[in-house]
């Protein structure tokens, strides 16, 4: 990198390269500045005031908000700077519910860590915490405002990275809290339960909702046969809680630990991922050959599925109808294991170990609950399993590794890389390649779909078939690619979406990591795990073949459909309810103008009147050239397009116009009339 000059930090000259701010330069110099609110991938917030330093000529400044200029002289540990940092921490602690011994973030808490590091030995201020209600209503996330340090990381992660914005600051000053609108429960708002807020939270204010005790209960219940499924990403992160490096593979130890805990059988979600590949790739090839419902979106990620149901109901037919691997596993297990294990169906308990908190919500979706019994009974996050292991006292690092049980514990590498962004696409391609070319795929690494870019586009030709693939991770990028699809002509055939950055390896149920490279390390871990396996293509999995042969028949068979596929529902908050102005039943062109509050104040009502007048003045209501009387253009008032900041919003058929003016609307309408080859009566 090019050096632009030097900054003197505590007497040492440090080169300035392309750092965005002084904080990055200081950290590069090996000084671990304390921060709560700084995240390199989120916007600079500048609120925690811990990364302060004394800059010659500028005084005490928060270094996250300062552009590095060569020649600066910076001191990071003057008496004044130290005092301010310590008082800041003392102030935070005075306002914090200090129940560290029983807090699930104990030992992995930034506040605890910094208080120790900065030698805060007493809290001289009065305890001022308020006793605010804790939101435990969702199945995925517990929100405890009493522990919140108001760094806003969760707010920015939800808004900037995920484009959801389910939480924000409420109230002002000392009464400020973070929560959903009107302080509702996360369960009642648009939260998709991706858990990125949990990953961003430096303390225990947002934590996964634990099911540990319930799982212990079924393990101790002698009547129950408890089986576990372990998601791919768990095996490259669980070890972090036991002092292992991020990305270190600990599959065998996990199996052994689960057996020690008392699980009767331990299986691999990657088996179900192989099954997903068979179904989803078959579905895709069928759609591609028929040219319908393209692009096909993947449906493994429950956060993404809920996101699509909320914001893109019009794209729901494009989602693969395949259940996620967790749910496929649940269905298959509940269907075949009672016979194999000789257990009554009601006594078979399926527990999944997931890197994800949305999976907790997914397991309880009504589609996956039959007569009150869930296909997957309990979902533990990676972190929760870690705590169970700690409780047993097992030495995780030295425990003798064990193997998965068969048949649902056998998988190929294709089922393992599911945990990485691009993994599902790669696994599907390993299948589709052979299907479409009729040739055997030798080098199974399809590197084009790998990487860290938020949206990756890959075009390839398999046999005679040209394919365009999109890989998106984070929901902000998902929104971008969905908008691209809706704009038309994006040309995508298959789009993989993962809600979390990097995929499941950085899911909200994984141990919270402060290692800046943790994602890359875990990602590499999964690719290594693929390499370590014998087989790399789902279609080569002998147990999958056997399952089809003996039970399911063919991929996409009726039985497979019944067991392995699902459906979605629109969760759009506001229906496209319309107010009829004229009695038109089947107009060729619908002109809908939003008259919701926001659009109304921006002049939608006037626009609606102008358009209605324009249509009648120009006799656009009816069509000539058709037999009888047919209706051409109708103007209706409607409600929220959920683009309130861009109002007035209107649409002409499926073309949405933001910041609408009469001139622009008229132009769009005329264009649509021409495009459809229609003529008004007076022409």
């Amino acid at each position: 990198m090019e050096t632009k000059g030097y900054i003197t930090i505590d007497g040492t000259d440090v080169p300035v390269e392309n750092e965005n701010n002084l904080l990055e330069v200081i950290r590069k110099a090996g000084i671990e500045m304390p921060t709560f609110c700084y995240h390199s991938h989120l916007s600079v917030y500048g609120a925690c005031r811990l990364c302060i330093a004394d800059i010659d000529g500028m005084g005490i400044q928060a270094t996250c908000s300062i552009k590095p200029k060569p020649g600066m002289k910076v001191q990071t540990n003057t008496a004044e700077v130290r005092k301010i940092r310590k008082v800041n921490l003392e102030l935070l602690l005075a306002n914090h519910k200090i129940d560290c011994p029983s807090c699930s973030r104990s030992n992995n808490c930034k506040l605890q860590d910094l208080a120790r590091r900065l030698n805060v030995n007493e809290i001289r201020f009065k305890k001022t915490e308020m006793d605010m209600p804790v939101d435990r209503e969702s199945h995925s996330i517990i929100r405890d405002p009493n522990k919140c340090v108001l760094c806003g990381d969760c707010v920015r992660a939800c808004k900037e990275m995920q484009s959801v914005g389910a939480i924000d600051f409420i109230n002002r000053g000392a009464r400020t809290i973070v929560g959903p609108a009107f302080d509702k429960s996360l369960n009642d708002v648009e939260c998709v339960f991706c858990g990125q807020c949990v990953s961003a939270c430096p303390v225990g204010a947002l934590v996964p909702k634990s099911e540990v005790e319930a799982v212990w209960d079924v393990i101790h219940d002698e009547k129950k046969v408890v089986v576990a499924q372990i998601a791919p990403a768990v095996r490259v992160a669980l070890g972090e809680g036991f002092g292992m490096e991020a990305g270190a593979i600990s599959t065998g130890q996990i199996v052994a630990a689960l057996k020690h805990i008392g699980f009767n059988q331990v299986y691999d979600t990657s088996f179900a991922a192989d099954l997903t590949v068979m179904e989803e790739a078959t579905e895709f090839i069928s759609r591609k050959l028929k040219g319908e419902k393209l692009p096909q979106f993947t449906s493994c990620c429950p956060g993404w599925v809920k996101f699509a149901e909320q914001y893109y109901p019009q794209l729901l037919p494009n989602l693969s109808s395949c259940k996620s691997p967790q749910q496929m596993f649940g269905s298959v297990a509940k269907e075949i294991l009672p016979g194999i294990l000789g257990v009554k169906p009601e006594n078979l308990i399926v527990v999944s170990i997931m890197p994800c908190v949305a999976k907790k919500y997914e397991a309880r979706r009504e589609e996956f609950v039959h007569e009150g019994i869930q296909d997957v009974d309990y979902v533990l996050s990676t972190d929760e399993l870690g705590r169970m292991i700690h409780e047993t006292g097992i030495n995780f690092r030295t425990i003798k590794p064990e193997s998965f049980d068969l048949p649902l514990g056998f998988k190929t590498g294709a089922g393992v890389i599911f945990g990485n962004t691009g993994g599902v696409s790669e696994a599907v391609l390993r299948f589709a390649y052979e299907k479409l070319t009729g040739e055997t795929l030798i080098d199974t690494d399809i590197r084009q779909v790998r990487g860290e870019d938020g949206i990756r586009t890959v075009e390839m030709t398999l046999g005679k078939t040209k394919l365009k693939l999109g890989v998106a991770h984070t929901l902000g990028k998902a929104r971008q690619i969905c908008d691209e699809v809706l704009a038309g002509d994006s040309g995508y055939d298959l789009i993989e979406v993962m809600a979390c950055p990097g995929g499941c390896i950085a899911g909200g149920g994984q141990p919270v990591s402060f290692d800046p490279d943790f994602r890359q390390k875990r990602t590499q871990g999964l690719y290594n795990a693929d390499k370590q396996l014998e087989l790399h293509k789902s279609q080569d999995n002998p147990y999958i073949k056997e399952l089809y042969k003996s039970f399911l028949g063919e991929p996409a068979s009726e039985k497979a459909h019944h067991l392995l596929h699902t459906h979605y529902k629109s969760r759009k908050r506001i229906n496209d309810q319309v107010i009829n102005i004229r009695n038109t039943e089947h107009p060729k062109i619908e002109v809908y103008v939003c008259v919701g509050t926001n659009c109304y104040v921006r002049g939608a009502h006037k626009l609606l009147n102008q358009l209605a007048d324009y249509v009648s003045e120009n006799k656009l209501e009816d069509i000539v050239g058709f037999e009888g009387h047919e209706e051409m253009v109708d103007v209706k008032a409607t409600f929220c397009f959920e683009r309130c900041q861009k109002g007035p919003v209107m649409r002409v058929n499926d073309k949405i116009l933001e910041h609408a003016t009469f001139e622009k609307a008229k132009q769009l309408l005329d264009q649509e009339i021409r495009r459809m080859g229609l003529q008004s009566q007076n022409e």
Partner: protein
Amino acid sequence: MSENLKTIMKTMNKATLEKIRDEYKSASGAVSKRIIVCAGTGCIANGSLAVYDALKEAVEKSGASLFVELELDQHDCKDKVHLSNSGCQGFCAQGPLVNILPDETMYVKVKPEDALEIIQKTVLNNEVIDRLLYVNPANGEQSRGQLDIPFYKLQNRLVLGECGHVDPENIREYISHNGYFAAEKSYNTMTDEQVCDTILESGLRGRGGGGFPTGRKWHLTRVVEADKKYVICNGDEGDPGAFMDRSLMEGNPHRVIEGMMIAARAINADEGYVYVRLEYPLAVKRMRKAIEDALEAGILGDNVFGSGRTMHIHVMEGAGAFVCGEETALMASIEGKRGMPMPKPPFPAECGLFEKPTVINNVETLAAVPLIVRNGAAWFNQYGTATSKGTKTFALTGHVANTGLIEVPFGTTLREIVFNIGGGVMDNDGKISSKGFKAVQIGGPSGGCLTVEDMDLPLDYDNLIAKGAMVGSGGLVVMNQESCMIQIARFFMNFTQNESCGKCLPCREGTKQMLALLDDIIEGNATMKTMDLLEEVGHVVKKASLCGLGKTAPSPVLSTIAKFREEYVEHIERKHCSTNNCKALMDITIDAEKCIGCTACARKCPVNAISGEKKKPHSIDPALCIKCGECHKACKFNAVMGF
């Protein structure tokens, strides 16, 4: 508006302005009397609108020919009476104010019942009604008109010049006072650089608190290349006790608009926002009307004075959060976001409203701009001190005889303001007390206090900073000897604590703890360590907060500690408040010498804390006493001590 006028205004240029001005002047010069009823918020609250209606009725009854609205093309004004409203005339304590021209007779505290008499005696017969004249409480002297009243006589009303004279809802009246000529000049005869240079040379500094040189701010924004730039007028005046900006927007809205136009010309912006808090409904209404009128007149719009340049202005109502007066929070609020400050840099000059280069100035700053462009930098320069040029408006409130809105050149001393313009300090009973002065709080919750030793300090930006205070937006609260400085500090701390946006840690948590520590002192639970901690956390909030409001939030506390340390020590060590404002520290006893045992106090006591036999001295149980003061009121012998 008449058709004739509409035609004239179609081509709005200098000649049109001159024509409007001259015709209006000759029309208004022909009237026999002009009655101006103050319709500032203070006078309205005191009933001035009813006075206006009563005067209107009285004129009609008396048969005098009256017109309320002066039409430009109505030349037959001779011997008629012109009745109009004005914005704030400044002398709020004496409202409703009625000013009669050309004889400059000023009536104070006018009631609707006085209307007929005013018309019959003063308007029709040139008789002065003595009872309605202002009487100086210090010496009992009567003053006939503004020019005789020391409150006005000692001021230098430049920015407030037309405020209180012109009808704020009549654009032609503003033009007749040479309004919009400066804007026309800047658009048609000056370059953007020349406009910036003029303001720079004038030495004008931001009147909102910071005191940054306005011309430099404009230059910085001017040189940034961008497809769009904005001008924002910050009218989110939130300091307790400050109402300068409100009065300007209510009293002379066109001046503010003209200032914004010149700022827009200087940086090549084509759009502006006036951000006004919604607690200022009259300011909102008058600014909106003024913008509409200026647009209709062809002053604002797509071809400003025929220059081919565009300028549009919108009014944005703020929801009343103090923090929205901070420029980055204000811009976030206009953008529809939560009003929270952002770290600077980037400064608004580079990346402001909607991420475009933006000049954001306070109302008073912008209102000074047309005067500078019209009269020249040197004219403005003659007022003030070496580093602080021009005049400054102050909202004079508290224990002072003449509360109201004043304007003085920088460099004026506190003594001049409090004793000569303000008429002296009053005790709690409302009497002038020559030795009553204790302190003034200047600059609101961000400012600090000045004491007797600062009486002869020339007030300007730098002198005040050196004293741990600041000009701020110009609130000036006078406190008498009966005020407890810890209570004063607590009042402001409570305000900033409530108004902290909650974003940055030191301000959010620090102000809360400072308030708790002050409460400990006031309630007698403090030790000297409390004060050390108070100073320590105050220093942290000052040094480490994100925005200017946070950085200055501890000022009232730090400044009272610096100036009145003994008073703090007295509270802490002796558990005593010598001004008797701190209830918890009161020592309530019954003087056995004076008590005759009438039992009146015991019967009134709501908590049965007083006991004693009839006709024998009573006593108070301090453990039960809630210090409500009922016994003190009930006692006819002044035997209850400590209140």
